């Protein structure tokens, strides 16, 4: 993966990357983020629970596949808008995919083929359901 984060430091952010949120209230407000803290706790969706497990397995100490520092680095490669718009697990999914490709665990082509295949499967099931 190219480290092309230079482009991700936006001029108005004064050199701050998207994940670096401490103190930046105005920044959230100008991205239309509600700054009140919602204490409501919803159950995780099944896919989020599985993402959580993948994340922990891949970054587990001693596995040597994707260390926690590389995982964090990959999760920081978002522009401000995407970082704030995407959910926590959706960010981590993108980060894991990028890192797996970078580490050669699978190739970008393999990834695109697989993603397309899953997409088609789900569309097929939907069609069956709405018959």
């Amino acid at each position, binding site marked *: 993966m190219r480290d092309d984060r230079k482009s991700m430091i936006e001029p108005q952010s004064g050199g701050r990357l998207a994940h670096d949120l401490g103190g*930046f209230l105005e920044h959230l407000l100008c991205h239309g983020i509600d700054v009140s803290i919602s204490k409501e706790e919803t159950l995780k969706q099944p896919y989020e629970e599985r993402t959580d497990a993948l994340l922990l397995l891949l970054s587990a100490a001693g596995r040597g596949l994707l260390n926690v520092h590389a995982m964090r680095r990959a999760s920081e490669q978002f522009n401000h808008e995407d970082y704030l718009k995407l959910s926590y697990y959706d960010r981590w999914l993108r980060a894991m995919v990028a890192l797996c490709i970078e580490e050669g665990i699978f190739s970008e082509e393999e990834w695109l083929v697989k993603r397309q295949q899953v997409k088609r499967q789900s569309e097929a099931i939907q069609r069956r359901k709405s018959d």
Partner: protein
Amino acid sequence: MTEVQEFQIGQMVNVKSVCTNKHHRVPFYLKGKIGKVTEYLGLVENPESAAYSKYNLDVYPLYRVCFKQTSLWGGEQNGEIYADLAGKWLFEVEV
């Protein structure tokens, strides 16, 4: 890179005001700010290199630094923030 304790407990330090798009663990809001070293936390895995290769296994000295709310954003007198920062991001302040 130095791998020994460079700062003493109680010493005032300034956080380097450097912006980089490389992975590092120094929040923007502490950059350029002055705090007091409260603890030496020993040598820890250096995330700045480990983030780019699992074969980079160097370490760096880590310090706990206390910042007054007043020195960060004119916050209240009775508030402090503690953060764990690498020695390479700190430099001595003349007091």
